[in-house]
């Protein structure tokens, strides 16, 4: 039904407040053939998902204005079903559990994961 240029299921939303990290993700994902949108806080990300459909969201936790967990909560409230992978540099057990409880399908620690690995994860999710 959607007649967008790129099929929505191949657009990735990167929600990350650290600009260099967001850019690196954007470049690598685009190189792999995906459409990428970048938001630097939970609030604008929420607006974005309300207006557009995405195939996947890569979500940071610690962000200004609205953090990642709050964003997940709001998505649940608004019944927006887009797979979310949490990318964080905290390794708090309670946060991991909370994120999964709020519907995140996966979780990785940025400092432990290479860009190549992240692209593989995204490809697996979106290309099936």
């Amino acid at each position, binding site marked *: 039904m959607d007649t967008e240029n790129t099929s929505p299921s191949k657009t990735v939303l990167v929600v990350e407040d*650290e600009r*260099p*990290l967001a850019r690196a993700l954007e470049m690598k994902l685009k190189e792999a053939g995906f459409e990428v949108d970048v938001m630097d806080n939970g609030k604008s990300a929420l607006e974005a998902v309300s207006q557009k459909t995405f195939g996947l969201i890569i979500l940071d936790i610690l962000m200004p204005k609205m953090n990642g967990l709050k964003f997940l909560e709001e998505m649940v409230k608004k019944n927006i079903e887009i797979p979310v992978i949490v990318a964080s*540099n905290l390794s708090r057990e309670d946060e991991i559990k909370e994120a999964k409880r709020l519907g995140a399908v996966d979780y990785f620690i*940025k*400092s432990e994961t290479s860009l*190549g690995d992240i692209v593989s994860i995204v490809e697996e999710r979106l290309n099936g």
Partner: protein
Amino acid sequence: MLEYQDYILTEFNIVLLSSIAILIFLIVLLIFEASKIRSKFGMEEEDIEHRLDLLRHLVGAGKAYLFIADKEGAVVDINPDIQSLMGLEPNQLYGKDLGIFTEDTPGSNVESLWQVLRDKKLPFHLQLRGAWKNGEEFMETAEIRPLLAENSIVGFVVSRIGSTDGEGQSAEGSEELEKAYAKEQVIVESIGDGVIVTDAVADIVMMNKAAREILDTQESEIGKSIYEILQLEDENSAMLLPQYHPLAEALEDERRVMSRSYYIVRNDFTRISLAVTASPVIVDDGIVGGVIVFRDITKEKDIDRAKTEFVSLASHQLRTPLTTISWYTELLSGAGSDNLTDEQRNYLDVIYDGNQRMIGLVNALLNVSRLELGTFIIEPEPTKVQDLIMSVLRDVQPSVEEKQHEIAFNSEEEMPEINLDPRLMRMIIQNLLTNAIKYTPDKGKITIDLSRHYPDLILKVSDNGFGIPINQQDRIFTKLFRADNVLSKNTEGTGLGLYIVKSVLDRAGGNIWFESEEGKGTTFYVTIPLEGMKAKSGTKTLS
């Protein structure tokens, strides 16, 4: 002149009269104050006397006591020697009303004696009927005294008169006892922690000032149940049932019970965190009461939480720039392989490696802080240790091949599953193995042995590497330590691994030690109880 004398006399009269009036007033005042002081002292003396009575009887130091009854007159405690003393069965007496023992008191109106006992708190003598094993009966004269606290009766004590302890002895002894107990009383009263002493059925017998302050109560709670006055909650605000109360456990299991994770809600609705220790009071193998000591640790807990938050946040802040370096090095080396010279590519590798080491260090520091704060979790589950070892061997395969080591793994045939935390166990194995690989020159030999030696599981990792110099051996398990003989050879690693491994094993009920000779090699031994690692609750896992 007559006038003058008259005048003086009149003046003198006035002065005299006034002085007398003042004097009388002062005397009256003095008498009044004196009587106040006297009654104050009198009350205090009485108070101490009765408290001492309670303590004395409860601790049973006066061996002449036979029974202790509650305020209803039902027997709640019996001198365990009663069988030999009186030829009576203890089991037959619990709960029995003291009245049955006064039936035989000759020639007296027993009812009125009890009445006087209750009203005027005066003890009386009675005859107890006892029977030896051979059936021969006898009569023993005993005394019933009230147990008083804050001037009200909380129980009764029945003791023998003219026992083998000797009345003379107890008269002397009791003064010493009184002094001793007075001292103890003062000590208990001045302890900063809350102290509550109870009888064997957990009714309060004594509460010190600190206890009153912590629980925010002005009233006398004597005689009330500890479960009512010290109502505890767990972390999730769920009320603790009496049978799980630390004092109940202490009385039931006859052992000391300690915990730091209880909360109470005070009268002003504030919620505070308590560290609680409960112990039974055991005399001659019988429990005569309990003591519960508690301390407000709300501040300590807040500080701990703040520390944990800080460490988490700090490690996050450190990881972010490290991620940036890592990802951009990756982008650089990926961007068109022809654009970079071999040398440039080499430099990038070096930058990447340095960065990886820093990331490892941050992780290790995070673990160390979790260990030190005690916030890490041990979650045992049935685990096949052999499988873990095989998995780690697969992981280290590349470095083994690089150094051309020979690795052998020997395991007992029928190794059962053991209850341990697989992540922590893996970390331990990984640490020992990577050390063996690192600290052995090329073409070395490393052996792993897994066996059982009741009551433990034993893991042995030996190498024929550099060894550890004798004068450095006592520091191997300290933080950030690397022995001199390997520092220059190999700068990889954090120096925290063994510290972390040892700390984890200490908490989990295991052990680690080693044998080593410089230039010959090292063998590390790890034991874990076959019954499993001790579980440990906390808030964080080690990564």
